[in-house]
């Protein structure tokens, strides 16, 4: 899974490209295939997905000499500019991540788990860029996160292996990795059943090998009560590579709000 396609550069797919009339820009990112063609004063957008093949690691972006044969929508721009950009973004709702198998954090232990969430692609054309549309790289199921069915928050659902070793991480070009540092300062083991990852308040970074990252989230489970201290680092995570800032947070992080969240609000009702 972690083989890197060496033929094409994996890192520059998010840079703006010049697309001539009658040509199109194609992006293959994980399961997503996206083609945007320029025809006269309009952009033709074609989206398709390949679920069956193991396409998780592919990331290829190139200009083709033809227009997409079938397109979903046409975006008319009076002054057809030739610049086109595929911009990676984090999801617009929190993602509730659940491990495939239960993970327990023993008392007085500390661990960094690497959780990944699919990114969205924002198609922007022209200079200054105008947003045509946003497309999730992978369709995500809705889920509800809250103490009951009356109050809570609509989120996306995700699954994770909750890996804790950096070298085990596969490069999946369409997913952004969030390091989650958890410290269990209590006497009892902590079951990590599910975690609501607040991706709309995180910043997205790109690494040299094409992997996408967000800042680290630190979480401390205190002895007293249900409260957990949550902190979002201001700096990009330390993964031994230089990281380039790709997109800022979609929402302003309300610091107070995040810090004061209870543990059950982050881990779900049965998570502790």
């Amino acid at each position, binding site marked *: 899974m972690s083989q890197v396609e060496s033929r094409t550069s994996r890192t520059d797919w998010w840079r703006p490209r010049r697309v001539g009339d009658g040509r199109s820009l194609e992006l293959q990112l994980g399961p997503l295939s996206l083609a945007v063609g320029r025809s006269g004063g309009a952009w033709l957008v074609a989206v398709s997905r390949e679920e069956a093949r193991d396409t998780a690691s592919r990331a290829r972006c190139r200009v083709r000499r033809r227009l997409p044969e079938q397109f979903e929508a046409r975006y008319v721009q009076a002054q057809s500019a030739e610049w086109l950009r595929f911009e990676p973004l984090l999801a617009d709702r929190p993602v*509730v991540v659940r491990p495939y198998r239960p993970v327990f954090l023993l008392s007085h232990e500390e661990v960094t788990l690497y959780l990944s969430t699919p990114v969205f692609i924002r198609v922007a054309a022209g200079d200054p860029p105008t947003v045509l549309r946003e497309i999730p790289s992978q*369709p*995500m*199921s*809705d*889920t*509800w*996160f809250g103490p009951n*069915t*009356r109050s*809570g928050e*609509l989120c996306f*659902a995700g699954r994770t292996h909750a890996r804790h070793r950096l070298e085990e991480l596969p490069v999946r070009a369409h997913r952004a990795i969030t390091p989650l540092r958890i410290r269990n300062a209590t006497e009892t083991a902590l079951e990590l059943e*599910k975690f609501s990852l607040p991706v709309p308040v995180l910043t997205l970074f790109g690494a040299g090998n094409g992997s996408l990252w967000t800042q680290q989230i630190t979480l401390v489970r205190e002895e007293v009560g249900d409260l957990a201290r949550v902190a979002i680092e201001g700096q990009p995570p330390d993964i031994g590579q230089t990281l380039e800032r790709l997109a800022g947070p979609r929402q302003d992080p309300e610091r107070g709000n995040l810090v004061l969240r209870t543990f059950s609000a982050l881990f*779900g009702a049965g998570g502790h």
Partner: protein
Amino acid sequence: MPLIDALLANEPLLSILRAAILVAAGFVLAMLASRLVRRLLGPRLSAQTLQLARRGAFYGVLALFLASAMRELGFSLAVIMGAAGVLTVAIGFASQTTASNLISGLFLIGERSFEIGDIIRVGSTTGEVLSIDALSVKLRTFDNLFVRIPNESLIKSEVTTLTRFPIRRFDLMLGVAYKEDINRVQEVLMAVAERNTLCLDEPPPLFVFTGFGESSLDIQFSVWARRENFLALRNSIAAAIKAAFDQAGIEIPFPHRSLYTGEATRPFPVVLVDPPDRQSPE
């Protein structure tokens, strides 16, 4: 000139004039107050509360000016109030229904079980609430009809607000043939829900075996969706379940009837006959 002097000297005419000016000014000011409320509070209040605040401002200002106009005309406020009390009793007896609707309307607004813009179901009528007025609630049904429901009947009957909570559950009742394995049916259904992106991951889909039916094993399968996606989920999940059952070879049975000819029954004699077009010439 003498005419104007005479008019100005005419005290009753002058007071009528002043009263008229007061009423007109009151009307204009009340409208302005109502607009001011909308401009100041519009972005912060819900449609329901805004309408209440606007009406409150309008009628409050208007009532003040009307009272002043009355005083100008020489009526004593205390006497008017007393007369109004007597009048209310008389009117109350004469128009019980209207009064009942009026009081019900106050309770409806106070109870806040629904607001303007909500979708409610009353009896067999489902629609969007357009306004909650003194006497009635106005609905727009989904086939675009305007329905007026008296407040009194709303207070008395069961009202369901469909848009109160952000998520909804869809209960699908289905039956499978007696030969099927219930656990396998459950697995297939859960897989369908897992694949459907509109279907919420949490709360998890619910599988309930409801009983041994006449010709099928009866099952309730409940899935959750965002309120906005409810209809889309309802259609997509039914289609996906049918397709998944077809693929897995699970039968959704037609009603079966077993016929017996009596106590010491023998099977009905059955003879297989070829259809006419395939019968041989001889």
